[in-house]
C-alpha cells in the first residue's frame, strides 16, 4: 500500500502539471487540444538536453521551453489567424507525435539517472508518512505549488480577473480595454510550458528514458481532468491524484492477485476518464457554473 501511494503521487505529477496549464488556457477562452503533442515534444527535448548536458535543471527548462514553442505555433494559427481551435489543436498533436519521434531517434533505448530525490535524513525515511509524502523529487512539489499559485492568481489578482473576463465574454473584455488576443497568447503559452514540464517529468523522472508516444494519452486525460475539475484549480489537484490511483491499478492489480488480464487493467484510466466525464457533464449546473463561456471561440477586434 505504501508503494502504491508513493507511485500514485509520482504518476499524478505530470497530469497535474499539464491539466493546470490547460486550465489557465481554457479559462482565457482557448481550447488547445494539442496537450498530448506539446507533452511529447517537451519530453523528448528534456531528455535530449539531459543526456547532452547532464543538468536536470537545464533539461526541465528546455522541456518547458519546447512546450512553449509548440503552444506558440498553435497561438499564431488559432489566435492570430482565427483558425478553428479544435482542428488546430489536433494538428499540433499530430505534428508533435512526428516531431518528437524525429528528435528522439538517437535516444531510444538510452537510460538516464532519474531526477534526484529531496531526502531529509531522519525525517523522510523513518516514518511511513514521511516516506509517502516527503522524499520525492522537486517537481512533485513544484506541481503542487504551481496549482496553488494558479488558484491564487485566478481568484485573487487583477490579472487573473482580466483573464477570466476575457474567457467568459471577450467582447466585454475588449470593451473594457483589455487586449483579448495578448491575454490569450499569454495563457496559451503558459499552458504550453506546463505541458512541456509535464512531458519533461515523464522522460526525466517517471520513466527516465525516451520512447515514442510515451505519453500514452496522458495529454488527453489532462484535458478531461479540466472538465472533471469544472475549471477549478483545487479540484484539478484532487482529480489528478484520483486518476493517478486508477492508472497505478494496472501495475499493482496483478501484484495483488486480481484475476484480470493486464490489458483490462491498462484500460482503467481511459474508462475512468469517460465515467468521470459522464458524471460531471450530466449535471449542467455543475459544468455551466465555471465553464468559460467563450471557450473555443475566435476573437477579432472590430475596432
Amino acid at each position: 500500500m505504501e508503494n502504491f501511494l508513493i507511485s500514485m503521487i509520482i504518476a499524478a505529477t505530470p497530469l497535474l502539471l499539464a491539466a493546470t496549464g490547460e486550465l489557465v488556457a481554457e479559462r482565457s477562452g482557448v481550447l488547445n487540444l494539442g496537450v498530448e503533442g506539446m507533452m511529447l515534444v517537451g519530453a523528448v527535448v528534456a531528455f535530449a538536453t539531459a543526456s547532452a548536458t547532464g543538468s536536470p535543471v537545464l533539461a526541465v527548462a528546455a522541456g518547458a521551453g519546447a512546450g512553449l514553442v509548440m503552444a506558440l505555433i498553435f497561438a499564431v494559427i488559432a489566435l492570430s489567424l482565427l483558425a478553428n481551435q479544435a482542428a488546430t489543436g489536433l494538428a499540433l498533436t499530430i505534428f508533435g507525435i512526428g516531431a518528437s519521434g524525429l528528435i528522439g531517434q538517437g535516444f531510444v533505448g538510452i537510460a538516464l539517472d532519474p531526477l534526484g530525490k529531496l531526502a531529509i535524513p531522519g525525517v523522510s525515511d523513518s516514518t511511513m508518512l514521511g516516506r509517502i509524502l516527503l522524499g520525492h523529487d522537486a517537481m512533485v512539489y513544484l506541481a503542487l505549488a504551481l496549482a496553488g499559485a494558479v488558484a491564487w492568481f485566478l481568484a485573487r489578482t487583477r490579472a487573473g480577473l482580466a483573464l477570466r473576463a476575457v474567457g467568459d465574454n471577450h467582447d466585454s473584455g475588449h470593451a473594457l480595454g483589455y487586449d483579448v488576443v495578448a491575454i490569450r497568447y499569454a495563457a496559451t503559452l503558459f499552458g504550453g510550458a506546463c505541458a512541456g514540464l509535464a512531458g519533461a517529468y515523464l522522460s526525466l523522472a517517471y520513466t527516465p528514458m525516451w520512447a515514442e508516444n510515451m505519453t500514452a494519452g496522458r495529454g488527453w486525460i489532462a484535458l478531461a481532468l479540466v472538465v472533471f475539475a469544472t475549471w477549478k484549480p483545487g479540484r484539478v489537484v484532487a482529480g489528478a491524484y484520483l486518476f493517478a490511483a486508477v492508472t497505478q491499478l494496472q501495475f499493482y492489480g496483478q501484484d495483488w492477485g486480481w484475476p484480470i488480464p493486464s490489458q483490462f487493467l491498462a484500460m482503467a484510466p481511459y474508462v475512468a476518464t469517460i465515467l468521470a466525464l459522464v458524471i460531471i457533464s450530466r449535471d449542467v449546473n455543475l459544468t455551466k457554473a465555471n465553464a468559460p463561456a467563450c471557450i473555443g471561440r475566435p476573437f477579432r477586434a472590430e475596432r
Partner: protein
Amino acid sequence: MLVLEPRPQPSRALALLSPVIAIMLTLVAGGILLALMRRPPVEALRVYFFQPVEEFWLWLTLPAEEAAMWLYTPSEVVVKAIPLALIGGGLAVCFRANVWNIGAAGQYTAGAILAGWLALGAPEGASGIWLVPYLILGAIGGMAWAAIPAFLRVRFNANEILVSLMLTYVAALLLDWLVRGPFKDPAGFGFPESKAFQAGFVMPVLVETTRLHLGVVFAIGAALALWLMMARTMKGFEVRVMGAAPRAGAFAGFSRDRTIWFVLLLSGGLAGLAGAVEVSATVQQLQPNISAEYGFVAIIVAFLGRLNPMGALLGALVLAVSYIGGENAQIALKLPKAVTGIFQGMLLFFLLGCDTLIRFRVRWLGRRTL
C-alpha cells in the same frame, strides 16, 4: 501592422486554392527541414512527393504496354488511399455537423475486431460470399464503437472529442488482449497474432500483379453516395444546417440529438468498414498493429478535402502519396518514418492558416496602430 479584414463574401476561388497553397508551403517548409537534417532538399522532396506523382502520370499517359511497368507505385498509392478515403469521407460529414469524432482509429479497430471474429470462426472452405457478412460486421463494429460517444453526448452531454479518443486506447488494448488470448493462433509460435484468414475472407484483387483490391470501389462509391446525400438530400441539408446554425435548425424542426447520432454512426460505420477492408486486404489476420493511425490521418484528409466527401477522395490520394513517398525516402535516403508525421502535421497547420484567407483579406496598414 498587418490586419485581417473580413471579406463581404467568402472567396470561392481561395476555398479551392487554399489546399494547393498549403501543399506548396508544406513542400517549402519540408525542404527547409530536410536541409537542416543535412539531406539534399530538392532530391529528397523529389523522392518524397514527385516520384510517386511522376510514376502515376507516366502510368496514365503512356501507351498500355509501356504503362504496365509503372503500375506498381500508382496502385500502392490507391491501396493506401482506400482506408483514408473511407474514414475521411465519413469524418467530413461528421465535422460538417460540428460533431468532433476524433476516435475513428478506435472505430476502425472495433470494425476489424468484429469482422475478424467472423473470419476466424467461419467453417473451413468458406467461399467468397462470406465477405459480405464480414464487411457488414465491420461496419456494425465501427457503429457500435461510435454509438458510445453518441449516447454519452446525447444523454449526459459528455464531450464527444474526449470520449471517442479515450475509446481508441480501449479498442487498441482490447485487440491486444484478443490476439494474445482468445484469438491467438495456437500454431503461431507464441506470436501475438491470429491465424491467417481463409481465402474467402480476402478482398479480391482487381488488377493482376498489383495489390489493388475491391475496396477502391467501396471508397469511390461511399464518396459519391455521401456527396449526393450532402448536396441533394434533406438529410444532408439537416447536417449542414445543424453544423452551421443549430438554433436555426431547431426552429426548422431538426433535432440536434438525432444529427449527433446520425453523423457519429455514419462516420463510425465507415471507419469500421475501413478496418475490416484493410485487414482483409493487407495483413489478412488480426495482430496488435493494424495501422489504426489511419483514423487520425483521416482527420487531415477531411480538412484537405474541404469537409466535402468527394474532396476527401482527393485528400486521401495526397496523404497516400506522402505515405508511399515516406517509404521510398526511408529506403533511398535513410529518412526516419517520423518525417512523414511532421509533413502531415505541417500540412494541416498550413491548411488551417490558409483557410483564413477565404474569409479575410490581409491588409498592411503601415506603421500606425489601431
